[in-house]
């Protein structure tokens, strides 16, 4: 309840001089704190950047190793592909040579290529045609040649020609 005709003045512990001094010190402390905070931030940022760079270098090293491995693998694949290509070329050439050996009067129904041999299935009008026109060149290529015949319905002969190359001892 208010009894007085007037209200009391606001009381403050801060006099004008004290306010001035406090303001000055506040600004100084604020600036010091600001500088300190700025330096802390920059320090933190520097440490963070350094850690990032270290991490990046580590990642790059890992990546480099992986890339080297991949290059090595690709080189191996390349060599393999070249080898396969060469083998295929050789095989293709061999096949072409093989099929060049087969005369027109003999018809092949199946050919099996083995590592050290060749098995041919086919039809021949008679044994002579086979012996003179196919077996003779096969003997010149393979070391062992075996032939077997059995008659077909139309009077021709079906044959199975099995041919092997003997592996050289010095290769072993």
């Amino acid at each position, binding site marked *: 309840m208010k009894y*007085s*005709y*007037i209200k009391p003045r606001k*009381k403050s512990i801060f006099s004008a001089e004290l306010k001035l001094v406090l303001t000055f010190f506040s600004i100084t402390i604020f600036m010091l704190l600001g500088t300190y905070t700025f330096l802390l931030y920059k320090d933190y940022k520097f440490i963070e950047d350094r850690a990032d760079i270290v991490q990046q270098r580590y990642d790059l090293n890992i990546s480099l190793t992986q890339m080297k491995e991949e290059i090595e693998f690709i080189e191996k694949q390349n060599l393999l592909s070249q080898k396969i290509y060469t083998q295929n070329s050789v095989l293709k050439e061999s096949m072409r040579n093989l099929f060049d050996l087969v005369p027109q009067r003999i018809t092949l129904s199946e050919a099996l290529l083995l590592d050290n041999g060749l098995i041919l299935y086919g039809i021949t009008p008679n044994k002579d045609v086979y012996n003179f026109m196919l077996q003779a060149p096969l003997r010149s290529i393979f070391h062992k040649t075996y032939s077997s015949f059995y008659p077909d319905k139309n009077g021709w002969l079906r044959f199975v020609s099995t041919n092997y190359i003997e592996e050289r001892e010095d290769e072993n």
Partner: protein
Amino acid sequence: MISRIFESLYIKVFVSIVVGRADTTVLIELYSKGKIKNSFEEVFATTDIDENMREFILLYISESPFYYISFLDDSQNQGAIPTCNKNKIDFYQDMSGCSYRCFKKRWSYFTDHDYIYSIERKFQHIGVDYIFSPFLLLANFFKDKIADNLAMFLLIEEKSVSLSVFNNSELLYSEHLLLNTQNREELMYEDVGTEMDESLEEDGIDLEELDIIEELDSLEDFGDIEDLDTGDDFEDFEESHEIEEDFHTQDETPSNEVKSDELNDDYERFSLIQKSINHFYKDDKYESEFIENIYVADGIGISSDFKKYLEEEMFLSVYIRQIDLTRELASLARMEMGL
């Protein structure tokens, strides 16, 4: 919240200023942790704020930022009215140009608005925080008696008397009476006859022949004065710890000149009170009740004649209690702050 903490750490300095007729009393109270740690009182022979007074006050208020300067309203145009209702206030007093406060939603006290400005200008160098009405001071001082009595209450200051009539905390009437010191001598001449009549009364002269008693004809409406209770109901009051009837006794031997001045003042006060009471009884605006008792807050040390005037001329039971105006003012300031 922070200001509260700071406030509790500092001492509070209460400065109370009461302006008298030719001097000013300044009381400084240093208050801390619910107690008055120290107090200093000084009386300055000026009614204005001079350099000595300013230095005295500044010496103590510089000890703490929490200082409160209280001033006792001594304006001419002040008083109290028996209502707080804004619609009824104008019935008793024209409040244009006045500031007023309501006391416990029962009655109001007011003062001149320009007076407050003048006080604030007067105290502009040291400032002023509280201006209290003497009626508020009186009500606070006699709060134990006002609560359950029908009586007149007086606050005696050097240059004024604050008069109020309360009936069980309800204000019936009040008036701020100013002593006219310039006309004192005229009053004395007018009263010579009365003084002589008083001396003759002791020799057997009929009291009804006194001029003053003639002014109290209206009191006849209230019954036989002789039937009035003359003190049996006030035994409790006498047994209380109050300092009552501590007026100047005959043991004191002031100089004749001083005694003469006191007598003049006291008689003028008595005359003003008598006129005011007549006004109270006659004016229909106020709810008249017959007054048997009068409680006096004596702030200056009135003479025993004053009591005698009231008792013998107005047939009142008079109870006087000494009051230290500056200390009461400081306690009002603390009450305002809730301390």
